[in-house]
C-alpha cells in the first residue's frame, strides 16, 4: 500500500514541479520517490499483508514490484536529454510513467479482480497517452490509436470474463474463487469456463501473445523508443505477474481445462515471434517480435503450474527486462548518432565503442540464452519445469525456437563486431553508463549465481 501511495504522491509532486518549470528537479525527485518505494518494498518483505481485502503484498507481489520499480528507475535514468530534445512539457512524461507504474504495482499484487481491472486500466490509459505523446509525429499517433483500440477491445474481453466468473462464483476475490472451484469441483457452473477463456484472451492481448499480438510491432515501432523500452520490459513483466497470479492462483484447480488452449497460444507465440523476428531489418522491430517470442517462453511456465513456476517467471522476466533495457539504451544512443534504427546502423559499433558494444553483446547473449548470463537460467528453468511434466515434445519445440533466436540475436553481434561500418563514436552520457553497468552486472550475477533470486518467492 505504501508503495502505491509513494509512487502516486511522487507523480503529483513531479507534475507540480513541471508546472513551475523546475525541469532540472524532475529526475532527482522521481529517483528519490522510486527509491523510497523500493525501500517500502523491502521493508514489507515476508509481511504478507492484505489491504482491505483488495490487495495482498505477498512476496510474489513484492518481488515483481521490486523488478518493476528497478526497471522503471533505470529507464528514468535513460531520459537524460531524451525527452528534453523532444518536448517542452517533459513533466508529463514523468508523471504518466509513474502513474503507469502505480497501476502495475496493483496488477502484481491484486487479490480482487476489480483491483486487477483498475490497475490494468491505470497502466493502459497512461500508456495510450505515452505512445502518442509526440503529437506531430504520424507514427506515434498511429501507435497510440492502434494501442488504444486494441487495448480497449482486450479490456472488453477481460471485463466480460470477470463478469461471467462473478456470475458463477458470486465473488471477485481470488481466494473465494479458488475455494469455489475446490468445493464444487464436480459441479462448476458452465459459465465459469468461458469466463476463464475470455480472461485468458484479454490478458494475452495485454502481454502480446500470439495470435493476439498484431498490435505489438507497430506500437513498439511507432512509440518513442524510451516508451517502447518501458512497454516491452516493465509493462510486460507486470502483465505476466498478473497472468500468473490469476491462473497459478485462483484458476489453478482448473488447470486441466485451460492448459490445452494455453499450449496452443504458447506454441503460436514462440513460433510467430521467432520466425518473424528472423526477417526483420529494423533493430527496433526485431526487438518487438523477439519480445513476442519471450512472451511465449514466459507463458511456458503457466502450462505447468507448480511450486517453481512463480520463481521461474520472476527469473525469466528479470533477465529479459534488464537485457532489453541494455538493448534499447544502445539503440537510443545509436539512433541519436545515425538517425535510423536498422541493423546496418550498428555496423562497426565495436571498433570505436568497445564497452557499449560489449554490453550489447552480453544483452544479446542473455536474450539468446547462453550460459553464464541470466537469460540462460531463465530458459533453463522453463525447460526444467516443462520437462518435469514430461511435455518432451514441447521442450523440443522450444529448443528449435531458441535456435532461431540464436540466429537473429547473433546478427546483432555480427553487425557490431564483424561488419565494416561508419565507425561513429557515440556520445554516452554518464547516466547511460550507469544503466548499462547496472544492467550488465545484474545479467551476469544472476547468470553466475542465480541462487540469490531463486528462493525469493
Amino acid at each position, binding site marked *: 500500500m505504501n508503495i502505491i501511495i509513494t509512487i502516486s504522491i511522487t507523480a503529483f509532486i513531479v507534475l507540480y514541479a513541471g508546472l513551475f518549470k523546475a525541469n532540472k528537479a524532475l529526475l532527482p525527485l522521481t529517483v528519490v520517490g522510486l527509491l523510497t518505494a523500493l525501500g517500502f518494498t523491502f521493508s514489507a518483505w515476508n509481511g504478507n499483508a492484505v489491504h482491505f481485502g483488495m490487495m495482498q503484498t505477498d512476496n510474489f507481489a513484492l518481488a515483481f514490484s521490486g523488478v518493476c520499480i528497478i526497471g522503471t528507475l533505470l529507464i528514468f535514468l535513460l531520459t537524460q536529454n531524451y525527452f528534453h530534445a523532444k518536448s517542452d512539457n517533459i513533466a508529463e512524461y514523468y508523471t504518466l510513467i509513474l502513474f503507469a507504474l502505480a497501476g502495475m504495482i496493483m496488477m502484481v499484487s491484486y487479490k480482487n479482480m476489480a483491483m486487477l481491472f483498475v490497475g490494468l486500466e491505470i497502466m493502459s490509459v497512461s500508456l495510450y497517452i505515452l505512445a502518442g505523446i509526440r503529437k506531430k509525429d504520424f507514427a506515434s499517433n498511429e501507435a497510440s490509436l492502434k494501442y488504444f483500440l486494441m487495448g480497449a477491445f482486450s479490456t472488453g474481453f477481460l471485463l466480460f470474463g470477470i463478469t461471467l466468473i462473478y456470475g458463477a462464483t458470486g465473488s471477485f476475490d481470488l481466494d473465494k474463487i479458488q475455494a469455489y472451484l475446490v468445493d464444487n469441483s464436480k459441479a462448476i457452473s458452465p459459465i465459469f469456463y468461458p469466463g476463464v477463456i475470455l480472461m485468458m484472451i484479454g490478458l494475452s492481448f495485454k502481454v502480446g501473445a500470439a495470435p493476439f499480438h498484431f498490435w505489438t510491432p507497430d506500437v513498439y515501432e511507432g512509440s518513442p523508443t524510451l516508451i517502447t523500452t518501458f512497454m516491452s520490459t516493465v509493462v510486460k513483466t507486470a502483465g505476466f505477474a498478473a497472468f500468473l497470479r490469476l491462473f497459478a492462483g485462483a484458476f489453478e484447480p482448473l488447470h486441466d481445462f485451460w492448459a490445452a488452449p494455453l499450449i496452443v497460444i504458447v506454441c503460436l507465440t514462440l513460433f510467430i515471434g521467432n520466425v518473424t523476428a528472423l526477417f526483420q531489418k529494423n533493430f527496433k522491430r526485431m526487438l518487438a517480435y523477439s519480445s513476442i517470442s519471450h512472451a511465449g517462453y514466459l507463458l511456458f511456465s503457466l502450462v505447468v503450474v507448480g511450486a517453481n513456476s512463480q520463481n521461474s517467471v520472476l527469473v525469466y522476466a528479470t533477465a529479459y527486462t534488464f537485457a532489453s533495457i541494455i538493448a534499447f539504451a544502445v539503440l537510443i544512443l545509436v539512433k541519436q548518432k545515425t538517425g535510423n534504427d536498422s541493423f546496418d546502423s550498428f555496423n562497426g559499433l565495436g571498433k570505436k565503442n568497445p564497452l557499449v558494444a560489449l554490453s550489447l553483446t552480453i544483452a544479446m*547473449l542473455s536474450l539468446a540464452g*547462453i*550460459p*553464464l548470463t541470466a537469460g540462460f537460467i531463465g530458459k*533453463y528453468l522453463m*525447460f*526444467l519445469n516443462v*520437462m*518435469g511434466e514430461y511435455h*518432451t515434445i514441447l*521442450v*523440443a519445440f522450444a*529448443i528449435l525456437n*531458441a*535456435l532461431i533466436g*540464436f*540466429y537473429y540475436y*547473433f546478427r546483432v553481434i*555480427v553487425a557490431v*563486431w*564483424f*561488419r565494416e561500418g561508419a565507425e561513429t563514436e557515440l556520445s554516452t552520457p554518464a547516466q547511460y553508463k550507469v544503466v548499462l553497468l547496472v544492467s550488465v552486472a545484474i545479467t551476469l550475477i544472476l547468470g553466475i*549465481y*542465480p*541462487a540469490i533470486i*531463486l*528462493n525469493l518467492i
Partner: protein
Amino acid sequence: MEQLLLLIFLPLAGALITAFAGKSAKIVSTVISVVSLGLALFIACNFIPNASTQFEANLPWIADLGIRFHAGIDGISMLVVLLTNLLIPIIILSSYRHDYKNPSAFYALILFMQAGLLLVFTAMDAFLFYIGWEAALIPIYFICAFWGGKDRVRINMKFFVYTIAGSLFMLMGIIYLYLQNPAHNFDIQAFYALNLDSAQQGWIFWAFFIAFAIKMPIFPFHTWQPDTYTAAPTQGTMLLSGIMLKMGIYGVIRWLLPIVPTGVQDWSCLAMVLSIIGIVYASLIAFTQKDAKRLVAYSSIAHVGLISAGIFALNQQGLQGAMVQMLSHGINVVGLFFVLDIIFSRTKTNKIEELGGIAKSAPQLAIVFLIIVLGTVALPGTNGFIGEFLLLMGVYNYGIWAAAIAGLTIIFGAVYMLRMYQNVMLGKTNELTITFTDIQGTEKLVLYIICALIIILGVYPKPLLHLTEASVQHLLEQVNQKLTSVK
C-alpha cells in the same frame, strides 16, 4: 582440491588480466599459460594412476537446483587436462609472428576458452559440464569470426548454430536425467547409478550423441568443419582441431558410455558404421583437395572417425587407443596447421600445386614437417602409431570387417599426407618458394617441442598408457556391470 580450483580459475583470472594488458597481452598470456602448464604437470606428478577421482572439489553452487561445483580428475580427465594445458602455450607461442588487431581481446579469449575446456574435462556435475561446454564455444566463435579469413561471418554462423543445436538437445537429455534422478542433482555418480529402460536410454543416447558427434565431428554431422577450419585464423583452427574436438570424444567416454550403456550397445552398430563411413569418405575427399589446409581438415575427420570407432567397439584396447590418440592427434594436428601457417605467411598460399621445393631453401622446416607428417600417418616410433594400433586392435575385436575398412585410414592417410608433403616440400622450386626463409625464433621453439613430443611419446608411451589404464578399465567394468544388470 585447491590445486584443481587453481587450475580452472587461473586461466579465467588470466583472461581478465590479459583483457586489460593492452600491448603486452602476448607476453602476459604466454606467462599465464606456461604457469598453467606447470600446474598441470605438478598435478600430473602428484596423480596416483588408479581409478579414483582425485583433487576433488565439491562446493555448493546453486543449491536450490541441485547444482554443485563438483570437479575432479581421474586418469581420463588427467590426459585431456594435460593436452589442453600443453597445447594452449604452444598455440599462444605459435601466434608470435602474427600481429593481430586487438591482441588483448584475442589472447583473453584463448585463456577464457581454456578455462571452459578445463571445466568440461574435469566436471563431475552435468550442469557444470554443460556450462563449460558452452563457455568454450563462445570464445572460439568470436576468435574465428573476428580474426578469421574470407566469408568468416557466414561460415561461423553455421558452425555456431550447428554446435549450439547439438548442445541444446544435450541439455534436454541432462534435464531428463536430472528429473529421473531421485536425489535431484546432477552428480555424475548418481547419473551412473540410474536404472533406465532401453527406450529411455535410446533417446538419451541420441540427445547426447548428436551433440558429441557434431563437435567431433562424425559423418554426417561434419559439414561445418572444413569451412570453419579453413576460414579460422590459424590459432582458431588449432584450438578447434587440437582441443575442442576432444570435448566430443571425452563426452562420449565420460557421459555417454557409463550413463546409457544399453543405448550405446543398441546403437553402437550404427555409430560404428557412421564412424567408418566418415573415415573412408573423409579420406577420399582428402585425396582430391587442392588446398593443404582443407586436406588436413578432412584428414582430421578421418582420424576422429577411427577414434570414435575405437570407442564404440567398447573394449579396453579401443578405449585406451582413443585416449592415447586424443593426445597424439592434438599434438600432430596443431603441428600440421602451424607448418601450413608458416608456409602461408611466406608464400601467401596453401594451394598444393602452387608450392614445391621448399625443402631446398628451408631444410629445417622440411625435417620437422616430415616428422609431424610421419606422426600423423602413424609410422612406428611416432606417437601416432601406438594410438592407431590400439584403436585398430579394439575395432578388430569388435569385428574383422570393421577393422579391415577402418585400417584403410592408415593406408589412405599415408598416401594423401605423403603426397601432400612431396608436392609441397620436394620437387622443383618455383618463384614463390625460391626465397623461402627457414624457420626461426619461436617457430623453431614450437616445432621442436612438437617434434620432441612426437618422438618421445612414440618411443616410450608407457607412462601415458599407465596414466589412463586403471580409469579406462574401471569405466568398462562399470559399463559391463550395468549392461548385465539391466538384462
